[in-house]
């Protein structure tokens, strides 16, 4: 952060994020500008405090009401922070009772509702879902083709293995191991690209965030895709007859 965080208490000061500077015309620290006909001063420049959508400018509540010309006593949203010793559920219930015409949400509820809104009410959900479905489909098809080609090229080897005493389960172990090796390479390559992407974009205008559980889901998904992709190949391999070695 550049500047002084105490500047947020200054009635004239606003805080902007460095990722939005270009959009705001590159205002310098302490530079005086105008928003909505109101005089403001850039009191601080934050790092990576960017809104999901649009450009956010932070200011004191009174300054925001002045800029947005909100009538006295009217608010769009109020953020309430409870003290540690407060029972949050009980407090939320009380707020709901006091403000029956308002929507009162906990942080988790608001987060879930926001995500649901963007996924179900905007194009993001369908676009992201379609892209993901296509990626999964392409992954399955590519792995299916790779595994199928590999197994076709190894039919003779599987017949030899069967002839010298291999059971169908032994053949299945070979094919599934191959699928898991492909999945392992895929996970490694994917994580390498992902970490590179996260590192490169960390200071760009595309801030990215990866919750810790996502890599686990990605790895599990990759393994499942690989196993799905190997099903046809597995079927071909298991149908290999040991008598084929004598033909």
């Amino acid at each position, binding site marked *: 952060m550049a500047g002084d965080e105490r500047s947020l208490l200054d009635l004239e000061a606003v805080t902007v994020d460095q990722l939005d500077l270009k959009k705001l015309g590159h205002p310098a620290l302490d530079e005086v500008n105008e928003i909505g006909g109101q005089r403001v001063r850039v009191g601080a420049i934050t790092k990576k405090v960017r809104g999901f959508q649009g450009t956010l400018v932070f200011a004191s509540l009174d300054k925001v009401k002045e800029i947005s010309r909100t009538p006295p006593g009217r608010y769009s949203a109020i953020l309430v922070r409870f003290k540690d010793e407060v029972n949050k559920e009980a407090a939320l219930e009380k707020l709901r009772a006091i403000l029956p015409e308002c929507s009162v949400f906990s942080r988790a509820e608001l987060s879930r509702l926001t995500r649901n809104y963007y996924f179900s009410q905007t194009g993001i959900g369908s676009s992201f879902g379609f892209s993901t479905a296509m990626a999964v489909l392409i992954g399955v098809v590519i792995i299916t083709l790779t595994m199928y080609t590999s197994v076709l090229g190894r039919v003779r080897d599987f017949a030899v293995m069967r002839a010298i005493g291999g059971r169908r389960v032994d053949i299945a172990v070979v094919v599934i191991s191959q699928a898991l090796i492909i999945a392992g390479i895929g996970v490694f390559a994917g994580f390498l690209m992902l970490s590179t992407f996260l590192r490169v974009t960390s200071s760009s205008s595309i801030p990215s965030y990866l919750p810790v559980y996502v890599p686990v889901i990605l790895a599990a998904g990759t393994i499942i895709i690989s196993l799905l992709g190997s099903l046809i190949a597995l079927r071909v391999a298991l149908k290999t007859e040991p008598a084929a070695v*004598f033909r």
Partner: protein
Amino acid sequence: MATIVLEKIARDFYDGRQMRRVLYPTDLDLKPGELTIVSGPSGSGKTTLISIMGLVLKPSEGRLFLEGKEVTRLSDEKAARIRLEKYGFVFQQAMLIEGLTVMQNVLLSYAIQGGRVSAEQRRKAMEILRALGLEEAAGMQPQLLSGGMKQRASIARALVKDPAILLCDEPTSSLDAENGQVVMNILKRIAVEEKRIVVVVSHDARVFPFADRLIKMENGKISSDTREFYSETSETRESRT
């Protein structure tokens, strides 16, 4: 001591239009200590015969006995277990698995059902490779070997578990005369000195002098056999028991 007895073994195949009999009811017995060569023109049924003997193909009719026990209609799993324990196979092509070294190919039958290969098994595999003149090739990839070396490696693979029965399908067909002689000498020694059942399917007349017993097949039937069917049949076995 391993013996193989075939009683009225026959095999039909569906050729896409009709059932076709490729092996007519055949009686045959095989005993250790002799090299049996099964010969005949292409399509005479010799490969079908060896496939049934090797438990890789089930007969349509008849009964097959191994060491006195009927093994005609075993499950895939049981047949695989018996193949692993009692059989060794040498194929027309060496059929070594590329990507594995010669040693790994030889050790394959130890590892095939998930077993761990012990140092003793490695030592034994190396001994066999040495006996077959392949000591230097143990760490090599199969594609770097000559045809004769590959076939000797496949013999090593077949022998590593001391199988009582060694079945060889045209083992010299892809070899030149000199390498063919080497391979046949090895097979002869294995049969006679190590007292194993060794059956070689071949239409190459050059290998006939190695035979202790020569069986000729034509049109799915045995047309000549240098030794008569002498073994006990199921009737005699039942009467004995």
